[in-house]
């Protein structure tokens, strides 16, 4: 049950999927909320939380990808070829963004000369020396990446719901946290 089968995603994949989805929802909300805070220790604390959760997501993305590479994918429900292709492309892009968004955040943080600490426990090195030009590029990439993640995540989620309610196939069930699979 830990591993995926021909009809359903394994428990590990489901945990990754929904656990990370929760964390993404949290970090995105924090991300948009924090930039308007007045400068003060409170703001730095919220930033620190954003960065700690972001680094956690980066590590989880790596573990998730490693796990996925050793997994089989359940056979997709019957659907037009372009939809199957779009779904796969979206999954690849979502994987890419799961790395690119936190990495550009880290790069931005480095170029801004900010410290980087994981939950008050240890510090991580800067990816690049302090650099105002790189800082604005990395910021742009980080913000655009986060936006793409939202758009793509929503489209992908909407597609999953379409499978469930319109096509009435087992695609969503194969990924739901409660163990279940395609009929």
């Amino acid at each position, binding site marked *: 049950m830990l591993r995926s089968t021909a009809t359903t995603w394994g428990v590990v994949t489901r945990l990754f999927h929904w656990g990370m989805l929760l964390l993404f929802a949290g970090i995105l909300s924090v991300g948009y909320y924090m930039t308007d805070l007045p*400068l*003060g*220790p*409170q703001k*730095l*604390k919220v930033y*620190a939380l954003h960065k700690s959760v972001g680094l956690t997501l980066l590590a989880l993305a790596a573990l998730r990808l490693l796990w996925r590479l050793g997994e089989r994918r359940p056979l997709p429900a019957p659907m037009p070829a372009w939809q199957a292709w779009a779904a796969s492309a979206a999954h690849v892009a979502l994987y890419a963004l799961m790395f690119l968004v936190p990495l550009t955040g880290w790069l931005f943080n480095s170029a*801004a*000369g*900010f*410290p*980087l*600490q994981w939950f*008050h426990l*240890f*510090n991580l090195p800067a990816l690049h*020396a*302090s650099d*105002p030009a790189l800082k604005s590029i990395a910021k742009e990439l980080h913000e655009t990446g986060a936006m793409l993640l939202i758009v793509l995540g929503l489209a992908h989620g909407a597609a999953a719901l379409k499978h469930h309610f319109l096509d009435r196939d087992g695609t969503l069930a194969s990924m739901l946290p409660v163990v279940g699979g395609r009929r």
Partner: protein
Amino acid sequence: MNRHWPRAFGVLVLAAATGTAGAAPTYTVVPAQSSLSFIGTQQGEKFTGVIRDFDARIAFGTADLAGSRLEVAMRLKSIDSKSPDRDQAIATTDWFDVAKYPVATFRTLAIRATPTGAVGDAELTIKGHTQRLAFPFAWKAAADGGATLDARVTLDRLDFGLGTGEWADESMVGRKVEVVVHLTLAPAAPPPAAPGKPPVAKPAHP
């Protein structure tokens, strides 16, 4: 008689300027080879802030500690901590309040010799807060008549009202700040009243 006037006048002026004849020699800072910086801690990470714009008036000689003094004026707008965001934050009222207190000053009230080297009894004024501190420093005479001065002192930022209130929380910004001074000094040019020969008042012993 008349011919000797200018020389004698020069000696008088020098004696008046430094207090005693044969007083501690004065020096000027060589900016390119000098630095005034502080090492702070933010979120578990050390950072260095460099104060780029400062003046120093230095007179020092072990033979005349009473006439020796170190005086530094630092223009805090010039702090560079390798992060424009942090530099901006540093200038706000919670920290240095640079608009209201643009200059920090340091001066020795006395300098004494100790077995481990010279120690200044000094006064440091930042943001309107004046604190006394011991300022031990290493003085090395250079072959060209100049010298280097090196010192490290640790301060508590709260003594100077830096980051009080909410910022006092040490998990964000540490309280201890280490100040690192490295000055390369050139001998001050002799006063213009005595061109050519330096106006040495003491007679040279054979």
